[in-house]
């Protein structure tokens, strides 16, 4: 039996290709963030809206099939408008669109919180502990570094916004027993994923850019919250005082809302519900006792309206009534600004000591 050399040994192993180097950075970042309890808690809480969406889609699927499982709540369903009960499938697209829109609307809040939880440390800690030379002296490029860090944010946002939406879609599909659903609603799937991707890229690069501006991650977090809140406040103030069409653009999250509106094709859904409401109004005028349209079986009674005034839920909200291209420009501009900030702050080592 020979004696084995305990000292240093040479290594000949497989080296992965260059395209996946950023994955190592993402993996490390995700691992580190998942160690924190608050991240785990936030991620699990952020799944709740997705559960609710899944439940709703399942319910709708059962309604479509007039399933016997729904016997116990038949009473509630009686209050649904006649048109829906008789031909649910024609309202399918609208209902699904509306449901997905609500999901994203609610999870928007959690998304911003999650970016706040995992984002600040990403670059500011590296700057504080001077890890950049350690990265750059390895066979990776700066773009790999950025992609890797962006990937961390992307992972969490995908886990919280995109994956649940896709899972809920699949569940809803399963419970419909009708492949026609796919034809009607596939654009929702694509739109959800696209929306998620845009959020990752936009919010992700913005957070990375802010993170690269300071060595103090708490300051970065505070800046993010400040931006979020102040932008909404500014937009609100401007909308009430100046009352111009472009005022809502000042709110960062409103831009996302506008994009989502377009990607999920909410206007079409609203049209559909408007038609429903109008016919309901006509029927009410005919009947002795006015019947108020019920939505979603939840029994929330909208306030009585005078004839001729449409409820706010059925028309495009005030703060979204501006051309889509403006939001695209705002988000695009922010992206360019973030990218430029990143490239100057995370300096390559090509400079005087």
């Amino acid at each position: 039996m020979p004696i084995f050399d305990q000292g240093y040994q040479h290594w000949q192993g497989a080296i992965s290709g260059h395209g996946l180097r950023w994955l190592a950075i993402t993996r490390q970042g995700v691992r580190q963030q998942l160690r924190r309890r608050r991240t785990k808690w936030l991620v699990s809480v952020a799944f709740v809206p997705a559960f609710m969406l899944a439940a709703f889609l399942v319910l709708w699927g059962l309604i479509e099939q007039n399933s016997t499982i729904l016997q116990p709540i038949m009473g509630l369903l009686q209050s649904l408008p006649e048109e829906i009960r008789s031909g649910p499938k024609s309202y399918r697209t609208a209902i699904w669109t509306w449901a997905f829109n609500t999901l994203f609307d609610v999870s928007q809040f959690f998304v911003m919180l999650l970016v706040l939880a995992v984002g600040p440390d990403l670059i500011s800690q590296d700057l504080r502990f001077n890890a950049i030379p350690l990265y750059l002296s390895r066979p990776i490029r700066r773009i790999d570094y950025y992609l890797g860090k962006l990937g961390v944010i992307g992972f969490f946002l995908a886990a919280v916004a995109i994956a649940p939406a896709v899972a809920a879609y699949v569940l809803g599909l399963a419970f419909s027993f009708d492949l026609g659903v796919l034809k009607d609603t596939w654009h929702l799937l694509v739109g959800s994923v696209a929306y998620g991707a845009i959020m990752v890229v936009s919010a992700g690069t913005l957070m990375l850019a802010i993170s690269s501006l300071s060595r103090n991650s708490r300051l970065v977090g505070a800046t993010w919250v400040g931006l979020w809140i102040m932008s909404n406040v500014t937009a609100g103030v401007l909308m009430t005082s100046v009352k111009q069409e472009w005022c809502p653009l000042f709110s960062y999250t409103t831009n996302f809302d506008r994009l989502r509106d377009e990607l999920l094709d909410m206007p079409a859904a609203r049209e559909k519900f408007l038609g429903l409401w109008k016919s309901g109004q006509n029927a009410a005028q005919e009947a002795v006792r006015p019947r108020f349209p019920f939505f979603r079986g939840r029994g929330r009674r909208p306030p009585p309206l005078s004839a001729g005034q449409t409820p706010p839920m059925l028309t495009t909200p005030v703060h979204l009534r501006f051309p889509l291209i403006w939001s695209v420009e705002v988000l695009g501009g922010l992206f360019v600004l973030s990218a430029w900030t990143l490239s100057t702050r995370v300096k390559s080592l090509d400079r005087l000591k």
Partner: protein
Amino acid sequence: MLFDLKSIRKTYGRITALNDLSVVAPLGAVGLLGPNGAGKTTMIRTLLGLIRIDSGEGEVLGINIRRKPLQVRQIVGFVPEDECLFPGVEGVEFVAYAGELSGMGRTDALQRAHEVLDYVGLGEARYRKVDSYSTGMKQRLKIASAIVHDPKLVILDEPTNGMDPAGRIEVLELARDLCKNKGMSLLFSSHLLVDVEAVCDHVLVLGRGRLLAEGTIAELTRSERPIFEVRVKGDLADFSNRLARQGCTFEELDGVLHVELPDGRSQELLWSTASDAGEQIRMLKPLRNTLEEVFFKAVSELA
């Protein structure tokens, strides 16, 4: 041949960091010396392919630094001077992460990290967070993460700066072992010339962006004339007078006699003189220029 730089030129605005630098370094342990501002850092960054040079060509272990900088960094390990960490990780994860960044798979990197940490002597400490390490341990950790991907060249930038004597000895021993026994080449940049002498065989002296001197240490420190350093126990003046009477020329510096023997005589002359005088010779060795003297001489051409 370790690396070959031809007429490298790099300016930052009005400052010329590298001024037509041409240097060829052999394999083995090479020392890099130079006053502040000589361009050592810039040269190191050029070798790592991190800098876009204005003009000139260069090769590291046969790989062109302009065209394939990523490949260069694949076979080069770098131990930076400044304090730098991946924050909040344990020692083993630190080194494994460094390996992953160089393209190793996760299991490979982890296994290799343990091997390398054994080698540098970080035992149980590898399971603690790196923030809690002492300076010596951080330095050894940096060396470990520089060799995790088995590079052929390791560049050490001021590795013993600010370390206590025990730490310095460890780092120097590691460096020596890597070079002499494990076949790695080193580029050792340091202001502590004693350390360079202890580890390297070959030195490069830079100044103002240019190569001022180079050669093996043995060559550079050889004295032109055969002079001996002598120290005696008792009266130096008496001893030196006796030597003078026998035809030696000498010079006294700090209690040490620099003696040049007359032609054809050997050290035997010194011993017989000592015996006659009832003296003890406590030190006798051929005078070598210290690396420090070589350095000052090379740099004096700048002024």
